[in-house]
């Protein structure tokens, strides 16, 4: 194996694209290095992207926040402005692993590892986040939900690397939340995870809503019907019940050691309602 420290995005892309065999970008490495140590991956080349200055920054402009793909979870959690604007996204990143993992792991890596249970992914999908990808064919911007295509598989092409996660500008009276169900409070993997992001009109009517679920299908899923069930309502019990039914209908889980498919489907509706209540409470108090 060759270990390469890329000094620029172009250098990283060139090295990844030139590899004959498996090539991986290395950001936090908390999945990649474990897979290498276990012999599950034997890359020809690993390209460390952490020394590319543009990938180490969180910036904000009229298009929203841009989180460089080599910014670790601990740094994101310490960014007060980002946390105040997108608390659900930041909390979803923060629940991943231990402090030791937070010092290295990145949400872009969480996305690229493509675990169905990746905590940050439903929150980013609910937020309407996109990723900026650079590859041999140039630069493109893609919704987060289009990256994972199955367990461990992404839509990234050879030589492509995610350089930033983009969170859109926030409307007034908006809130987001991510909640998951795990048997233990920390250091566990979601049995069900739900991200909810909504905005209210001046009279408290829901004007926009996005709901995404994790750990209940081969990839995290946007559930458009759940969001539609909330829009135009006061997010009351009837609307929540209708949206919860859409969440249950979107689930396509497996039985595994963490829970049965039936259990996951039932739990998804419960976790959805709690996440929606939290997002609603945040929307009602935002900007005060």
């Amino acid at each position, binding site marked *: 194996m060759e270990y390469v420290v890329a000094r620029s995005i172009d250098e990283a892309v060139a090295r990844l694209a030139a590899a004959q065999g498996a090539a991986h970008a290395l950001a936090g490495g908390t999945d990649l290095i*474990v897979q290498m*140590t*276990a012999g599950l991956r034997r890359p020809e080349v690993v390209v460390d992207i*952490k020394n590319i200055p543009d990938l180490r920054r969180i910036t904000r402009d009229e298009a929203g926040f841009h989180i460089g793909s080599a910014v670790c979870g601990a740094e994101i959690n310490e960014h007060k402005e980002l946390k105040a604007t997108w608390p659900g996204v930041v909390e979803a990143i923060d629940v991943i692993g231990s402090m030791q993992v937070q010092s290295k792991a990145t949400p872009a890596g969480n996305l690229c590892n493509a675990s169905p249970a990746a905590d940050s992914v439903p929150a980013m999908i609910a937020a309407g986040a996109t990723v900026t990808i650079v590859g041999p064919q140039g630069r493109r911007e893609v919704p987060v939900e289009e990256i994972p295509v199955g367990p461990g598989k992404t839509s990234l092409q050879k030589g492509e690397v995610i350089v930033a996660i983009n969170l859109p500008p926030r409307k007034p009276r908006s809130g987001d939340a991510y909640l998951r169900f795990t048997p233990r409070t920390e250091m566990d993997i979601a049995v069900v995870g739900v991200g909810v992001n909504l905005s209210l009109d001046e009279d408290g009517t829901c004007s926009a809503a996005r709901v995404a679920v994790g750990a209940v299908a081969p990839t995290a899923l946007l559930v458009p019907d759940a969001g539609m069930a909330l829009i135009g309502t006061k997010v009351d019990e009837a609307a929540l019940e209708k949206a919860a039914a859409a969440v249950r209908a979107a689930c396509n889980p497996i039985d595994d050691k963490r829970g049965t498919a039936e259990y996951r489907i039932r739990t998804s509706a419960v976790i959805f309602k709690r996440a929606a209540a939290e997002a609603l409470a945040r929307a009602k108090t935002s900007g005060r």
Partner: protein
Amino acid sequence: MPKLHITTNVNGSATEFLARPEQTLLSALRDELHLIGTKEGCGSGDCGACSIEVDGRVTCSCLMLAGEAEGKIIRTIEGVAANGQLHPVQKHFLQEAALQCGFCTPGLIIAAKNLLERNADPTETEIRFWLAGNLCRCTGYDKIIRAVQAAAAEMRQSA
């Protein structure tokens, strides 16, 4: 593939070493630098026995390639005591008998010290949350929590 030549700072001293490209920093610390206080438990980032500080953040050295240490400031358990004096966290781990087999202890001390440098007066919940990535199979954790609380109290008094 040739070995990488890595220049870093370990426990306050400029340090150079050679490592294979796929070698973890944990392996390099133990096998190249012979700093065997850092332990390998799971090797997959779950147990925290290999915890070290890298540029002031606590991380698992098994989750890091040796090459990633280039230019970094690293602290291992060997660098926690200073001038022949145990760090308060080390002292109170002994006084509270917060260890039995001792395998998790270097990682716990590194993680607890890092917490107390950020938060001089953590609640029990904050301590338990911060140390959630350090598994101990002997003590049941209560003595560890008490040791960290005692160390925090001593460090606040001397601050």
